[in-house]
């Protein structure tokens, strides 16, 4: 279980570091360092297990249904990599403590660094491939925030984003590949996948999954053609570069290739893809590194090149090459991290990393220079340093990689060429920075940094030396256990780690590379370090540029696409909805319905036909007039509503007719109240009416309308001429009186069988009324409408004084009669409310009648007059109605019945006889109250706008003038 600590500590540390104060630089560093060293120490305790070839595994179920466990799996290879991550991590922490400026917010830095360390350890130690992918993506995110640490810099932001985009995309591909692999293997468990290697290679999807996995690995390891993000990531603080972009994160790709080597390698496809990518990266990286001006640029490209070398080795399908690859992973980590640290020191001390501005630093900082020289030598492959050993193994492998002749020539030749460039850029780096003299003033006067800053670099250089001189004693066992862990038993190759193998072909190749490299360097010095001659060619295939162009195009294209496939027009949206509905209905019914029109014609009642001549004419008239003659259209819609309610009455639905009529009246008033605020529209402004587009749109809409109408008519007719099935109506009809206690079945349904619908329906009405009120409170009428209020139309007319008992003149008689109507409406409304259960009526109609009574008062008396004499608090009516209805439902609880069960109470009173009280009546009362409240609220709040305009005429005129000025 202690193994979990290795993973847990960095994340806990990250959290702790994040919470510390911004000035706590030392505490932060101590914390981070302690975490790294503790992890390394814990790992070290497993060394005996590793030597014995044991695999330490811990796992808990996470999403067992989908084969996801959270587990750690420590074998030799993972151990080696984890040690690399933690040890270099510790060194980087020490280095960073002195590198970071006091102005930098260090908590963020160390927090992210530790989180990255944890993620990287997660990748390395995952025993489940899905879990591995999770940590893989986490390294992308943590590296993203680390690169963008100085986010105020444009290059940092852009570099971070590019890195994230490329590596996260790779991660997606990796996920896809891993999923396929897991599906074939039947598990995502690494051991099971390794065991199913043959099945996977034989599966028809192998090319696909291989491609996906390789995309993941290549993007992470910055392999050609995805290498471009790495140089841009150099905008990160140097400790980050030295840790992530040389030693650890970029290694994740090659780590994975080696990890899955037994599963995926061994095929021609593997050889072709991996070797080409490796070879291309090797050459491109080495060549580009030679012509960089930035120190970190040189290192970045050289990293690409060295990772290419590792990839190439992994692609060779040979176990010996695998050993060389693993060996070079370690070697590259040590010398490259050390070189980055040196670059950081130079930058830190001089204020620049530009090779053209630097020079002669050996005098100012001899220790730094020495360390850098040794590390660079290791990078160039100078004997007695670790780089030499692995490179020699590489040269040896190139000769036996392929059977084909061209391969046996091409590979060694390219290896030598790459080796030459490698020597050249190493030499150039040292020479340009530390030797000679500086061409001009440096931003800062350089001197040796503190010992603590040199210590990490020195440690790494020491390691280079030790390994280079005594490979068998130092790195030998580790390399052995790591490779053994990768390969299954019995495939372990025979190799020897010695400095001197005798005068053989690899040594000659090394020598050739060395001499060639120095020659290139000399030639370049002679030319004054030109830009790469191949640079124009490169620009063509420049991934970096392609990336940014792609990104811009992507956004632009997306915007264009979204605008193209969506619309801001309501009409388009509604037309699409209509089309969708028509299509849905047509798909189901076309050719499957039988229409029989003949039987019906005989029984047509001429009066009904005439009624619908009226209805149809009014509807069509409304459709044609709604634009220019709104009032006429409104009247016609009112007629259509009347015809509808007569139709309901005709076909045995008195309740519907009643409701429709009362709603119709209120709706007419409502729409009229709104009409006042609409702009005047004259038939003359026809400017766009007859353009071709407008005509086409009208044709389209007319077609849609006709198709929809015909469709609906057909559906209605087919249903009408089919006999009704039994359904639930029998039960309802039979139980309405005995069970529901009412003669009016519709009302029994409304308040009892389906009372919950009514309950919801009144809530809707209440909500809408409150919404209308909300909206009207903030109403802003258009200025010109304000100006054209009724008062303006009738100059000289004074508004009636609210204190007058009766209005003068014309409105006298309407007022007198109208006022009498209110108590009458009250009585009629109670009548409807109380009888609803047994005859047409009910709370809704009753409420509407009462509300219409109120509205009639406003109509004949004016707002001010009514409100000076009567306070209606509609929200109390609404609230009361809702509570009443809800409470009626709750009454059933006291009788231990479900909500909304009807409860009847029949007390006997003297004189009056038996009273019939029922929770249903209370419910209907709630409906009544609510309808009164909502209807008055809607209409009166709307009517109040005239009051507002009346009050604010002056304000509006001012506003108009302001608008005109603008």
């Amino acid at each position: 279980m202690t193994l979990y600590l290795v993973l847990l500590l960095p994340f806990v540390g990250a959290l702790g570091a994040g919470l510390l104060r911004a000035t706590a630089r030392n505490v932060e560093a101590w914390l981070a360092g302690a975490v790294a060293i503790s992890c390394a120490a814990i790992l070290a305790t497993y060394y005996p297990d590793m030597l014995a070839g044991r695999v330490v595994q811990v796992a808990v179920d996470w999403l067992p249904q989908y084969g996801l466990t959270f587990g750690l799996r420590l074998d030799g290879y993972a151990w080696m990599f984890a040690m690399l991550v933690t040890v270099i991590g510790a060194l980087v922490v020490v280095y960073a403590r002195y590198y970071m400026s006091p102005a930098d917010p260090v908590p963020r830095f160390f927090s992210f660094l530790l989180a990255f360390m944890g993620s990287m350890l997660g990748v390395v130690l995952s025993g489940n491939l899905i879990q591995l992918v999770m940590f893989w993506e986490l390294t992308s995110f943590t590296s993203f925030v680390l690169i963008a640490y100085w986010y105020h810099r444009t290059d940092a932001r852009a570099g971070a984003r590019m890195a994230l985009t490329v590596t996260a995309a790779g991660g997606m591909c990796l996920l896809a590949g891993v999923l396929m692999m897991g599906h074939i293997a039947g598990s995502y468990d690494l051991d099971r996948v390794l065991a199913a290697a043959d099945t996977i290679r034989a599966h028809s999807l192998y090319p696909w999954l291989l491609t996906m996995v390789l995309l993941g690995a290549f993007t992470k390891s910055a392999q050609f053609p995805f290498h471009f993000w790495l140089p841009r990531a150099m905008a990160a603080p140097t400790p980050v570069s030295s840790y992530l972009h040389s030693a650890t994160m970029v290694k994740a790709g090659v780590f994975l290739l080696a990890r899955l080597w037994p599963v995926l390698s061994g095929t021609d496809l593997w050889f072709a893809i991996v070797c080409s990518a490796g070879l291309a990266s090797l050459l491109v990286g080495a060549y580009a590194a030679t012509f960089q001006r930035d120190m970190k640029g040189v290192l970045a490209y050289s990293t690409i090149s060295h990772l290419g070398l590792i990839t190439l080795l992994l692609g060779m399908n040979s176990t010996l090459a695998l050993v060389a690859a693993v060996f070079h992973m370690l070697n590259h980590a040590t010398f490259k991290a050390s070189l980055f640290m040196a670059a950081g020191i130079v930058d830190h001390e001089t204020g620049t990393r530009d090779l053209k501005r630097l020079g002669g630093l050996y005098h100012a900082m001899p220790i730094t220079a020495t360390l850098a020289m040794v590390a660079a030598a290791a990078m160039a492959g100078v004997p007695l340093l670790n780089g030499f050993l692995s490179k020699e193994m590489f040269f040896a492998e190139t000769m036996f990689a392929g059977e084909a002749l061209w391969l046996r020539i091409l590979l060694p030749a390219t290896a030598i060429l790459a080796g030459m460039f490698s020597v050249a850029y190493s030499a150039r780096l040292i020479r340009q920075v530390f030797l000679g003299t500086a061409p001009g003033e440096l931003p800062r006067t350089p001197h040796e940094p503190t010992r603590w800053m040199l210590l990490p670099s020195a440690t790494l250089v020491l390691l280079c030396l030790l390994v280079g001189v005594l490979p068998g004693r130092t790195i030998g066992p580790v390399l052995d256990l790591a490779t053994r862990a990768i390969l299954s038993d019995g495939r372990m190759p025979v190799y020897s780690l010695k400095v001197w193998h005798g005068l053989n072909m690899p040594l000659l190749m090394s020598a050739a590379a060395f001499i060639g490299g120095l020659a290139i360097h000399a030639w370049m010095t002679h030319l004054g370090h030109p830009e790469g001659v191949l640079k124009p060619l490169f620009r063509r295939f420049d991934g970096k540029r392609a990336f940014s162009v792609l990104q811009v195009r992507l956004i632009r294209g997306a915007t264009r696409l979204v605008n193209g496939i969506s619309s801001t027009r309501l009409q388009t949206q509604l037309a699409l909805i209509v089309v969708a509905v028509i299509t849905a209905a047509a798909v189901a019914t076309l050719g499957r319905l039988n229409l029989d029109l003949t039987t019906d014609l005989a029984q047509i009642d001429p009066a009904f036909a005439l009624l619908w001549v009226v209805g149809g004419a009014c509807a069509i008239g409304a459709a044609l007039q709604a634009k220019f003659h709104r009032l006429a259209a409104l009247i016609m819609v009112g007629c259509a509503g009347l015809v509808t309610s007569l139709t309901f009455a005709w076909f045995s639905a008195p309740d519907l007719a009643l409701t429709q009529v009362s709603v119709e009246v209120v709706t007419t008033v409502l729409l009229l109240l709104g009409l006042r605020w609409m702009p005047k529209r004259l038939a003359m402004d026809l400017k766009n009416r007859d353009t071709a587009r407008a005509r086409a749109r009208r044709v389209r809409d007319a077609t849609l309308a006709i198709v929809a109408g015909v469709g609906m008519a057909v559906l209605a007719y087919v249903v009408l001429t089919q006999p009704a099935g039994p359904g639930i109506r029998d039960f309802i009809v039979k139980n309405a009186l005995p069970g529901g206690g009412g003669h009016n079945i519709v009302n029994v349904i409304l308040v009892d069988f389906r009372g919950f619908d009514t309950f919801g329906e009144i809530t809707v009405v209440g909500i809408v009324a409150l919404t209308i009120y909300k909206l009207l409170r903030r109403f802003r009428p258009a200025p010109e409408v304000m100006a054209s209020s009724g008062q303006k139309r009738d100059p000289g007319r004074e508004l009636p004084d609210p204190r007058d008992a009766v209005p003068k003149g014309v409105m006298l008689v309407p007022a007198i009669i109208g006022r009498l109507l209110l108590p009458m409406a009250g009585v009629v409304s109670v009548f409807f409310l109380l009888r609803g259960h047994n005859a047409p009526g009910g709370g809704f109609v009753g409420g509407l009648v009462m509300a219409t009574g109120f509205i009639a008062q406003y109509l004949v008396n004016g707002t001010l007059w009514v409100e000076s004499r009567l306070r209606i608090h509609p929200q109390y009516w609404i609230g009361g109605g809702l509570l009443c209805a809800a409470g009626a439902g709750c009454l059933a609880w006291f009788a231990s019945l479900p909500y909304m069960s009807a409860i009847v109470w029949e007390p006997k009173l003297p004189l009056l006889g038996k009273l019939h009280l029922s929770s249903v009546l209370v419910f209907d009362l709630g409906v009544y109250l609510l309808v009164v409240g909502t209807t008055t609220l809607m209409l009166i709040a709307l009517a109040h706008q005239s009051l507002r305009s009346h009050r604010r005429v002056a304000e509006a005129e001012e506003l108009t003038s302001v608008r005109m000025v603008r």
Partner: protein
Amino acid sequence: MSTLLRHLPVLPIVLPLISGALLLFLPQQRTVLRSSIALLSTLAQVAIAAYLLHRLIDPQPGLLEHGVEVYVLGGWVAPYGIVLVVDRLSALMLALNAAIALPVHVYSLAHWDRVGVHYHSMLQFLLMGLNGAFLTGDLFNLFVFFEILLSASYGLLLHGSNAVRVKAGLHYVAVNLAGSLIFLIGVALIYGVAGTLNMADLGVQWAAMAPERRSLFEAGVGILGIAFLIKAGIWPLNFWLPKTYTAASPPVAAMFAIMTKVGVYALLRMGSLLAIPEAPAPFAGPWLFYGTVATMWFGIVGMLAARQLTRLVAFSVIASSGTLLAVIALGVTSATAPVLLYLIASVPAGTAFFLIAGMTERLRVNSVTEETRAPQPTTYTAFMAGEPHEVGDNELDEVGVAIPAALAFLGMAFVSCTLLTTGMPPLVGFMAKFSIISALLGAAMDQSSLDAWLLIVSLLAAGFAGLIALTKRGMRSFWSTGRTTPRLRFIEAMPVAFLILLCVTMTIAAGPVMNYLDSAAEWLHEPNAYIHAVLPTREVSP
């Protein structure tokens, strides 16, 4: 207490109604009292939903016969009356609703509840509508609850009305009114053919329906499906969605994150009940699948094109709807549980994202344009009880403690939401996406279904595109130079933290969560138990 327990299923509907109605009696000036009542109601809903969910995690045999609890409203058994049905899916949706309602509610207490009147009532009514839509077992009653939640959403959308909100609101209302009419036509046609409205009974009737009536029924179901799809935001019926969500005030938009999922829920429920072997469910079909994949892509492309964080999140809501529907439409049974996980991961993420967007908007220098400025409210003293003036969108009162690490918190929250929305590791969004793809791979590889491959590719691409879009937007919000240090109140930060913690919890407890979802999915694909529980008196065809 035992009485209340027996009536538990109806409480998520009645409770918010009663509290919302009670609030109408309290003057707007009693801010504290009003907020307390509303908050109590929301908390109670959380408790009820949690209890209902808890009961179904491991149902005791006595209490819930088949893991389905039926509440017979008014004592009229189905199919004659309306019943509420608590099964694993509806309990899950209830809990999800409560889980986002609480943080949204708390968030709005900081400022937004005073931007217009009747905010708390509206929110309670919205919750009532949502809860009802998830609970009801009756098709027409579903319509009614849709109307409740829609009308409450109109009110909330127009909360603190200004030109932008009114303009967007007009389209939103128009589209939804059309949608409601379509819903009605569909329900009517279904009733006209089947003679019943209970959803379980419809399943029974559909299974036994005479062939000559099938086409009409299918037409009804198809029309109904369009209504659901409009709500779910399927392309090309969703052009209203981005502008609506962008215009709404942040807590309202946050609440809207679940509204599209109501449409998805309805489709899932109806699809489950109407899926019989004799005839293919009318909801399924290749056109639906391609439409939903198009929706996914529309959402993705929209995310890339969006210039505003809220708009981007709105498109991500579309993408998530598309994802859900696409997986459902593909009809891979084993993917149902994962897609439910995706649902419960994406909704809190969307909610949190809208809340964060509300806070990051403040990072930018406040620019009040004519469009976004609200006119001065009037009071109707003569006719309404007196109400105080509302505060504007941008009038933050400076009372309250600004937390120091505001930017860091917002950044972390943003990253978490990005991970959740895009399905990147390590949060539950990834687990959902991974398990969906894992299930789809089965279909893709074993049945060599091209559609499944298409969906897998779309899912991966969606995550990636979302990442690109969100990184761009996040960098602009957090790493731009022209921003002010935000004032962030604890009461605003807490809800976001709660939502993210919820997702983290789900991530850690993915196994148990998936167990629950697995059983929910199993019940969904085996609707006979549901039908048996709802219709004790009816014979169910085997």
